[in-house]
């Protein structure tokens, strides 16, 4: 019997259904375990003038209080390996850039004692005006998030640029230009398991890190850099996670537990509350996308210009990656030969954002598909026909000029129409993704620019 293609039972199904699946929070409590909690900024933006942890440290039941100075390395960039500069301290040092930013950590005998200890930490802030509206990123009078401004630098541009064909000529030639603005929202990943970590010191000096990370080796790398420990001094235990959706790639809880463990030589657990998860953990980013399409009156998209603003929140994390991925999908499931897109990563005093299901592309799909709908309506054309007419075909090029081998825009639209009971005309029902010819090869698609290394896709 073949396993592939079969509806075999879940490998972990029986464990789930009997309550035996062990998530981070479910490991037996090791003897002497302490609970961690973090002091978080009450302000969206402020300078930290001083931090006094002495009263908290004296509270009975408190075993350690740590601040930025206790982190062997406080700043680790998520994408340092790809040349993206690190910018986010694990514990805030001289300033806070978002409400909820962690400033200090406490390890205590119970969560209740840890919470009380947080109230005894005295931080003096100098509150600043926050920067919140990314549309004002280049405005002269707005607050500046960094000394270099509010905009991430993609060397050599201040935005991710994708260009293809001759956009200006396409707009010149267009019969109609349709222009719109789209604002996809920040949302919380909200897995039912909140983020949690448990770090246990082992007799041989290693640390066992029970983790809900979506990426064990990535988190191991982040942790080993923070702690300046070789990777074989750390063992991550995980792989079984109560939902992630992108929200568990930031290594939010592991470093604090590990540092508190190194301080106390005791196991330390930190489990985010739901409130922390909703309000202070990273979210899917908010975006602002403006699109202008150059259309012919018979329903072809000759060209497209896009301006995207990505609200990264207070620090970069994976934002530069996400905005690049976004840029590569701004023509959607359709072929647009002339393209100019500019995507800006803007820092703000919102919570830092991170990956979430569909990272970068969810926003592109929303903006471009609503734009498609409007363009069809502006042309007085059936939205199904407009989509199928411009749909990707074999040999068409993506915005990156990568040729498409076997795109399924047409077949998925036809299947959805059929399942939903939408009557497509015979002409539309019979369309295929065959390489363009005849009516499907209008003049503006005759010389789709190709790149030599990928060869001629239609040959």
């Amino acid at each position, binding site marked *: 019997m073949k396993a592939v293609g079969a509806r075999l039972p879940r490998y972990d199904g029986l464990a789930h259904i009997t309550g035996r699946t062990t998530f981070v929070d479910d490991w037996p409590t090791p003897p002497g375990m302490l609970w961690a909690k973090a002091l978080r900024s009450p302000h969206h933006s402020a300078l930290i003038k001083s931090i006094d942890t002495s009263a908290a440290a004296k*509270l*009975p*039941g408190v075993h350690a209080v740590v601040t930025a100075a206790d982190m062997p390395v406080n700043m680790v960039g998520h994408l340092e390996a790809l040349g993206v500069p690190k910018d986010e301290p694990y514990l805030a040092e001289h300033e806070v850039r978002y409400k909820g930013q962690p400033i200090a950590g406490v390890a205590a005998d119970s*969560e*209740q*004692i840890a*919470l*009380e200890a947080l109230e005894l930490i005295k931080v003096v802030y100098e509150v600043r005006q926050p920067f919140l509206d990314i549309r004002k990123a280049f405005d002269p009078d707005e607050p500046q998030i960094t000394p270099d401004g509010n905009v991430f630098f993609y060397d050599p541009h201040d935005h991710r640029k994708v260009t293809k064909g001759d956009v200006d000529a396409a707009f010149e030639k267009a019969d109609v230009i349709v222009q719109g603005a789209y604002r996809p929202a920040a949302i919380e990943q909200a897995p039912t398991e909140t983020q949690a970590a448990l770090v246990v010191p082992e007799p041989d000096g290693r640390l066992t890190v029970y983790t809900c990370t979506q990426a064990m080796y990535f988190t191991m790398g982040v942790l080993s850099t923070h702690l300046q420990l070789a990777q074989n001094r750390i063992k991550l235990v995980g792989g079984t996670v109560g939902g992630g959706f992108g929200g568990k790639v930031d290594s939010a809880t592991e470093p604090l537990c590990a540092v508190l463990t190194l301080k106390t030589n005791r196991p330390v657990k930190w489990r985010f*509350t739901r*409130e922390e998860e909703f309000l202070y953990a990273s979210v899917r980013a908010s975006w602002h996308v403006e699109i202008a399409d150059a259309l012919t009156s018979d329903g072809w998209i000759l060209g497209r210009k896009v301006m995207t603003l990505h609200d990264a929140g207070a620090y970069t994390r994976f934002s530069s990656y996400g905005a690049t991925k976004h840029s590569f999908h701004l023509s959607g499931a359709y072929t647009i030969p002339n393209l100019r897109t500019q995507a800006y990563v803007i820092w703000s005093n919102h919570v830092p954002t991170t990956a979430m299901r569909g990272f970068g592309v969810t926003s592109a799909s929303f903006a471009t598909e609503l734009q498609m709908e409007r363009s069809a309506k502006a042309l007085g054309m059936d939205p199904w026909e407009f989509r199928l007419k411009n749909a990707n075909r074999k040999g068409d090029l993506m915005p990156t000029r990568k040729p498409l081998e076997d795109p399924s825009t047409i077949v998925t639209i036809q299947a959805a129409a059929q399942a939903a009971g939408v009557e497509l005309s015979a002409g539309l029902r019979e369309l295929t993704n065959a390489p363009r010819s005849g009516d499907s090869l209008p003049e503006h698609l005759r010389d789709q620019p190709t790149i030599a290394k990928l060869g001629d896709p239609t040959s």
Partner: protein
Amino acid sequence: MPAPPELLQPTSESEAIDAFGDGVGVTVVSGGTIVVPDMTYGRLRPSRVVLLTRAGMGGVTREAGVVRIGAGTPVGALDDAVEPLGSAARGVADGEIRAAGTVGGNLCAGPAQDAPRGDLQAPLIALGATVRSAGKGGERSDPIESFLGNHDGRLVLSVEFAEPAAAGYARMDRKHAHTYTMLAVSACRAADGSVRVAASGVGPFAVRLTSVEAVLAERWAPEAAAKEALVDCDPPTDALASAWYRRRMLPLLITRALEGLA
């Protein structure tokens, strides 16, 4: 660390009244739906808790047109209660929460962190309920609208109201079983023909809409009356809806609730 709270578990109403005393420094816990999470999150560290689980203060009686509901009655026991109370009760969270939360707790519930609470308050205002409570100076009864928000130092014992001649209820939430009610309106016509109207979700506690009632006392003009609602309240913006949206919806819900009295 401070000592854990002293825990008193009265087994009768009179024991509960004694344990509560003048209420100073006392946290009353009935279903636990509000106090337990507040304690878990470190927002509340009571010094003295009176836990009413075994005080036997629940129960609904109907006698000669008067309904009396014990403070310890779970919200879930009110599914079939007199309207508009029954409709409001059925709309609270889900069955598991309704089985825990009680009438007394609901009357004392101020807003949650980021949304309104206390769904039973408005229907009880519309029903013209009185609240019997204990505390400093002994037992007393107050009209519910003056009790709401002034419950410090009072232990709710029961609420009491006359069955209305007619009732109406209209509610908006965002469909999910456990989101808080965004806005709700309760209306009742008493046996003497007088009409009372109240709204939830327009402030920290439910509000009696006397300006609406005043128009209705003149003439039966629900839409005209509904327009007066904003004289009596200033709806908030919160995570569920903006003040703009609540202001827009309030007259609509009032007209819908008043349909029950037509």
